[in-house]
């Protein structure tokens, strides 16, 4: 930011952000295990690449697991960040005038005033906790995606944040703006090199969905057993806007804690959160979402399916806050615990604030697969392990719009493997 000339107002805003972050550098998060972030150094620079094909084979295979493909024919735009460097950013020709994709540092240089006024730390508070603080003070890029007003981009936009070194923290700040009447489907994969063990990913994401716009955001996390993850996400949805968030976690992680907050400020706006979470090995997983129903006629739904195994601990949270009489929202979280050493919490949370007409509801359940269901499938000739796998697959097969085939297959495969392990 130092080489950008800004108005006094924007400069003051930057100072404000910095001050808020500095005050929070030691502030633990409200949820999740505390992490000593001082032991990680910031990720290093990497070399840029001319095409995604030149990524090393192992990296390509890893990122494919989260839906990021080097073959861009089925994608409208791509962003690939290796450690702290955006090594590849490209918009396919057909979408050249519809999509902007670049790193947030570049976006700040190009659109500094606009960014600071409308988007930069406007949906997430830099002083929230030490993870927002580390990103505000030691940011290592992140993606900026803007879909121009009225443009409906069917082919997914893909973004990958990759960590290739151990003992580092990657502190990204992402911004997605879907302008009025525009539509986009963004797939982001966060991955680490198979050699990487310990590390931290702190990611700020601020999404702005304009009037009548629609954003489908699919995130697949692919971490490792000693990796800690602290995303902080804020979404603002305007009139008639739709935000759909799909989240998939199928690999072990040391700990992850995230609680995205969607503010439905515009009338008739909608937010949907779908998540499929597998708790494996010693993972500590604390995930949920909050929707604030502010505009008239706002709607929200959060569906979570959790399967926990081994010694994992999983918290599945959901919070709905109704602030208008005409809002309606529902939470649906179901879990299966497949190991005697695993713990699951389902924590639905509903609040009506000055809105006696708000209709908020939830269904939360943690239960095993019923034996009679397994027997039922077996009476049709299916062996027990296949019956369990089919029921588990059915359990997590929530209808996820916009989920690419490769991801659906990846999910099915992981479920297949994990249900076999459970037998």
């Amino acid at each position, binding site marked *: 930011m130092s080489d950008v000339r800004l108005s006094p107002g924007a400069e003051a805003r930057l100072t404000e952000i910095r001050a808020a972050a500095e005050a929070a550098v030691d502030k633990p998060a409200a949820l999740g295990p505390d992490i000593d972030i001082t032991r990680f150094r910031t990720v290093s620079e990497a070399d840029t690449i001319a095409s995604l094909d030149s990524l090393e084979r192992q990296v390509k295979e890893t990122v494919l697991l989260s839906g990021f493909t080097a073959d861009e024919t089925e994608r409208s735009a791509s962003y690939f960040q290796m450690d702290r460097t955006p090594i590849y950013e490209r918009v396919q020709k057909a979408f050249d005038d519809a999509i902007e994709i670049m790193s947030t540092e570049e976006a700040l240089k190009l659109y500094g005033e606009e960014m600071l006024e409308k988007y930069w730390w406007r949906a997430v508070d830099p002083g929230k906790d030490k993870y927002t603080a580390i990103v505000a003070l030691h940011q290592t890029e992140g993606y900026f995606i803007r879909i121009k007003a009225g443009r409906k981009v069917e082919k997914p936009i893909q973004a990958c944040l990759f960590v290739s070194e151990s003992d580092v923290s990657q502190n990204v700040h992402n911004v997605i703006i879907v302008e009025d009447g525009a539509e986009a489907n963004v797939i982001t994969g966060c991955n680490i090199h198979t050699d990487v063990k310990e590390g931290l990913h702190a990611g700020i994401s601020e999404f702005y969905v304009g009037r009548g716009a629609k954003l489908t955001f699919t995130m697949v996390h692919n971490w490792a057993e000693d990796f800690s993850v602290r995303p902080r996400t804020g979404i603002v949805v305007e009139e008639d806007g739709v935000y759909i968030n799909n989240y998939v976690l199928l690999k072990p992680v040391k700990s992850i804690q995230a609680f995205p907050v969607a503010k439905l400020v515009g009338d008739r706006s909608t937010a949907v959160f779908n998540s499929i979470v597998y708790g494996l090995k010693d993972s500590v997983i604390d995930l949920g979402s909050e929707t604030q129903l502010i505009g008239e006629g706002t709607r929200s739904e959060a569906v979570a399916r959790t399967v926990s195994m081994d010694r994992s601990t999983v918290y599945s949270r959901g919070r709905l806050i109704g602030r208008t009489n005409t809002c309606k929202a529902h939470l649906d979280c179901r879990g299966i615990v497949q190991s005697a050493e695993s713990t699951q919490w389902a924590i639905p949370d509903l609040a009506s604030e000055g809105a006696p007409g708000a209709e908020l509801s939830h269904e939360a359940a943690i239960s095993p697969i019923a034996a009679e269901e397994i027997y039922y*499938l077996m009476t049709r*000739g299916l*062996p027990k392990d296949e019956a369990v796998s089919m029921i588990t697959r059915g*359990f997590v097969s929530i209808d996820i719009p916009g989920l690419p085939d490769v991801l659906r297959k990846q999910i099915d495969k992981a479920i297949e493997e994990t249900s076999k392990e459970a037998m």
Partner: protein
Amino acid sequence: MSSEQAAPLLRIEDLHVSVGERDILRGVDLTIEEGETHVLLGPNGGGKSTLLNTIVGIPGYRVTQGRIVFKGVDLAGLEIDERARLGIGIAFQRPPAVRGVRLRQMLEVAARSELTPDTVADLDETLSLGHMLDRDVNMGFSGGEAKRSEMAQLLAQMPDLALFDEPESGVDLDNIAVVGGAMNSLLKGEERISERRRAGLIITHTGHILEFVNADVGHVLYNGRLACKGNPLDLIEEISSHGYDKCVECALCQTFA
């Protein structure tokens, strides 16, 4: 049934079954030959469903004495799915709902990956499956829908021995006709009597289903034993006029001590 037939399709010998601490079946003997349809009558709690669940192999139904031999194979120690693949099928009275598993998938499983679009179309036509095919199986199904779904699964599986647990319970007359028609085509097919192969064992309270399915033999399961055996329609008439207690004492049918 031809006299050269060495072993019957199903032979149950002196079967004793306990559920938890309770002895439910206390010495059941039953033989079903290929092509035969048998009817099982008896008061509630008499052990009819226990007998079916034991044949199918549901855990919790503990055989404490006697044995079940199907196609010459002693079923002891065989899992539910092994028995199914050997040729035993069942239509449950109240099948469980399975979230996320569609009826279409159940048909694929039952048909062992031999389910062709034509078969599905046939089943749809016979049983009016329609939108049920892509719904989670038994999830919110009405009484009639659940029975039609069970019949579709049996028709996809085509077992050599089909067990029906109260196929007409909770079903309106139109659905009884549809279910009965499907049972008939499964058990009797278009074949001549001498060529019939599939056998059935039907639990019924009312006997309504027998208006659609011709049964050969009826049994009354009473106090854990098959108390008598005879023409199914005669037995039903006797029971409806005099009750089970009198029925098992009557001279109309062959009684067992």
